[in-house]
């Protein structure tokens, strides 16, 4: 994924420093790839920035969840935690039994730096690696998502049903809402989950 982003950014005319800086400063997987693809197709800076705002608005929900869960934190650590909140760090932390801020920062900063490192590796390796290999790296993020979901799906039929419903809902909404579909499906799905998933599943500490 980091390599995939680097490939598009370099094609759009980003320098190696700009490619890596964006990963460090923006740190948004899908958002960066969308921004780089838009730059490649010649979109205006305003259009790119507004699209990024919309695509990354979901981090508001994730950041709220993370800050609601962390313990023994302070303002400075919270600001750092907010910046390194992305889909993966948020999902892993939500499923983690330990709520210490240090556990979260450990997970999230590792993911952040590997994302930057991925962009760096991408910048260096793109000329060397065959297309087959760079294409294959596109799957890595999805492999991670699937790997995180499967244990919960295996554990609870209700979670499995919820995942299926949300997936179908998002496939349908994607046709109409574009990049907004993700956040809308996520929220509607969680709303449906309020009714189809037992409270005990969360109170037992499995969630």
């Amino acid at each position, binding site marked *: 994924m980091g390599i995939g982003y680097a490939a598009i950014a370099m094609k*759009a005319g*980003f*320098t190696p420093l*700009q490619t890596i800086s*964006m990963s460090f*400063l*923006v740190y948004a997987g899908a*958002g960066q790839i969308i921004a780089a693809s838009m*730059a490649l197709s010649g979109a205006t*800076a305003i259009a*790119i*920035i507004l699209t*990024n*705002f919309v695509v*990354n608005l*979901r*981090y*508001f*929900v*994730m*950041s*709220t*969840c993370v*800050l*609601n869960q962390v313990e023994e934190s302070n303002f400075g650590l919270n*600001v750092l*935690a*907010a*910046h390194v909140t992305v*889909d993966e760090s948020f*999902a892993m932390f*939500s499923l983690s039994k330990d709520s210490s801020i240090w556990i979260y920062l450990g997970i999230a900063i590792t993911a952040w730096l590997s994302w930057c490192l991925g962009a760096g590796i991408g910048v260096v390796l793109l000329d060397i690696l065959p297309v087959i*290999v760079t294409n*294959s*790296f596109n*799957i*890595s993020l*999805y*492999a*991670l*998502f*699937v*790997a*995180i*979901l*499967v*244990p*919960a799906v295996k554990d609870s039929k209700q979670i499995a049903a*919820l*995942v299926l419903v949300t*997936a179908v809902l*998002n496939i349908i909404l994607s046709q109409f809402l574009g990049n907004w579909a*993700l956040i809308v*499906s996520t929220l509607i*799905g*969680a*709303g449906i*989950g*309020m009714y189809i998933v037992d409270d005990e599943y*969360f109170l037992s500490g499995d969630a």
Partner: protein
Amino acid sequence: MDYITLVILGCAVVTFIPRLIPVLFIDKLDFPQKAEKFLNLIPYTALAALICPGVLTVDNQLWYIGLIGAVVAAGLAWKKVPLGAIVILTVVVLITVYSIIPFF
């Protein structure tokens, strides 16, 4: 300031704002148990929505590439293979698939 620098800084600011707002107002938000259940369900629904249908566009020309990858990753996760190994093995399987496609 050149166009790309402007894009990077603009995206950095608009991406940080939604992340920062909860930091500034979290003390004023008191979550009842129902809201907590709702928030706890979000990772599952977010991951489901991230995977479907996005995984089918991993390769813009060949939709089944992403499907193969997802099935391989799910199978490995079912067998309790560690996360890092799942990612690496899935990438390796796709490299293999790409290598044999030209023979069909």
